[in-house]
């Protein structure tokens, strides 16, 4: 009997693309509104110098770490240890260069490896023992903070002459753009490519979307879950190195409380903590949004105690813009 014509509704092929676009514009909308408000609020905002400051601040703050965090969040995990690992990165980098006499490139390699190793520990327990990432990464947060304090004996380590090239990098410009910002953009570009164009990225997304489906497709899920924590740890260490390069010193004070900023950047960028949803471009916007908020408050001279209140209100407003622009999303 009766073959039915293929029942694909033509409009439905468009819908997801529109929705996809709206999702983009959710974060982009906030971003643009914020930029407009900021430039009206303070003349100093839209100066080249200030904008370069903001991107450099973001690069050595939540920016780079947010890339790793997005990978983690895509798998439905969370990594609270990033700020502490950045501290380890900063301290260890300065220690290796100043006290141990390692060359800058070698020190950087070792530090990134250390960050990755921290990620291996977290990832192992999360992936293979199926323990909740929140608690395990909280434990790693404490451990890494402790290590950074022990290595530095609690005080800043000046890199001095041997670390000059790192400091040059941290404060230098390339084509008028701060070098740390270029590094950050590069990391985002790589992150975006990995997420979109490699099986790794797709599988990571799939795991957050439906872990069981991925497992049943014969994918060794554990390895991928482990990897995202390794990436996050390694990038946190990179963030620590950038912070050291920017100030010329390694200190265990780096990244205290940074985990919340980093996760906030990812979520303001539209990623879901329930996994499977999020992209690099919006995450970058999310990090920039947070950076701009504190920047404009300093420029506009919002009194200290009120800055907290403004920060909170602006974040809520930002999310409301996302709600309005991306209403149909959920």
């Amino acid at each position, binding site marked *: 009997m009766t073959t039915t014509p293929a029942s694909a509704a033509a409009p439905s092929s468009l819908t997801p693309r529109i929705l996809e676009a709206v999702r983009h514009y959710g974060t982009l909308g906030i971003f643009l509104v914020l930029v407009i408000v900021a430039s009206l609020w*303070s003349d*100093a*905002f839209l*100066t080249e*110098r*200030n904008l370069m*400051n903001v991107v450099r*601040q973001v690069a*050595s*703050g939540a920016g780079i770490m947010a890339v790793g965090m997005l990978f983690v969040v895509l798998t439905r995990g969370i990594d609270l240890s990033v700020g502490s690992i950045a501290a380890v990165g900063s301290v260890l980098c300065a220690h290796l260069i100043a006290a141990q006499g390692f060359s800058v490139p070698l020190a950087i390699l070792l530090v990134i490896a250390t960050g990755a190793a921290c990620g291996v520990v977290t990832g192992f327990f999360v992936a293979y023992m199926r323990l909740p990432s929140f608690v395990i990464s909280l434990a790693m947060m404490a451990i890494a903070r402790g290590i950074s*304090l022990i290595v530095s*004996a*609690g*005080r*800043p380590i*000046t890199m001095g002459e041997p670390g000059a090239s790192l400091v040059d990098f941290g*404060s230098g410009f390339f084509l008028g753009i701060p070098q740390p910002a270029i590094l950050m953009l590069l990391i985002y570009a790589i992150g975006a490519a990995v997420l979109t164009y490699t099986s790794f990225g797709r599988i990571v997304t799939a795991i957050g979307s439906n872990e069981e489906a991925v497992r049943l497709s014969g994918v060794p899920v554990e390895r991928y879950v482990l990897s995202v924590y390794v990436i996050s740890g390694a990038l946190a260490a990179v963030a620590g190195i950038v*912070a050291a390069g*920017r*100030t*010329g*010193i390694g*200190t*265990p*004070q*780096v990244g*205290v409380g940074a985990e919340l900023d980093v996760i906030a950047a990812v979520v303001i960028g539209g990623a879901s903590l329930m996994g499977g949803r999020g992209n690099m471009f919006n995450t970058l916007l999310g990090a920039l949004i947070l950076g701009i908020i*504190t*920047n404009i408050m*300093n*420029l*506009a*001279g919002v*009194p*200290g*105690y009120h*800055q*907290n209140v403004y920060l909170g209100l602006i974040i809520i407003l930002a999310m409301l813009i996302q709600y309005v622009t991306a209403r149909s999303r959920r």
Partner: protein
Amino acid sequence: ADCKVGLTMPSLNAPYFAAQVAAVEKAAKDAGCEITTADSQSDFSKQINEVEDMIAKGINILIINPRDQEALVPVVNAATAAGVKVVAMDSTLNPKANFISQVRSSSDENGRLVGDWIAKTMKGTPIKMILLSGNQGNPGGLERRMGVIKGITEAQLVNEGAVNLQILGQGWGDWATDGGLKAAEDLFQAHPDANLVVGENDSMVLGAVQAAKAAGLDKILFAAAADGQREALAMIKDGAYGATGLNDPDLVGRTAFDVAYKALKGELPSDFPKEYFTPADVISKDNVDKYYKPDSVF
């Protein structure tokens, strides 16, 4: 020796505190005491817990750098009641509490000296100041900045007969170099006409020095209300950094322990003051050699 020392710090996350811990630990070990150090991680209720735990453990000397001048009062009273010799150091503790003494440098006096030095150095120029504060709601920070402001005001009145001080903005740097750097970057954008940066500690001002360098601002004077961190002293030597107040963690730590130890031995003079200040000074190019030790902990 029955000498068990408990040391509790508001945070271990700052070089100044690290140096203090090292000083107290060394003094305690030299005296043959056993010492336990605890880190309150900026949370005074943690610090209360720590003191409770230490009392339970049976310490007989408590050196406390209180996270809060009021909140720690009940537990300090409890410690004294349990026979512990309590000495506060560095941060203030409400003097109504039962303890032997508090040992610290005088923010007021240091600030006055630093302010005085600034006013003299900048004589004739209207001061446009950027202030770098630690964290909101920190009373120590408040004392430090008010000390400097008082010092400048008083010196200008005395020297010039009028106050010519404008504070353009206040940034928050969480006591750390990168925090100070970020806050200074923003404030220099908003106020390119600034000619003075005053920070509540050296770490933040060190960040501001870099921010100024990056922004190409070279006519700025840098000063901190207190500390004397090695890196800052090195820059004072070079002339890149103006001055800082003398707040020697080593001296404060050692003195605090000595006072407590003497009390334990019953050797402390009965008229020992409840508030004991270590000598104040402003460290500038003129006298930096006296204080600069390249191998100092701090």
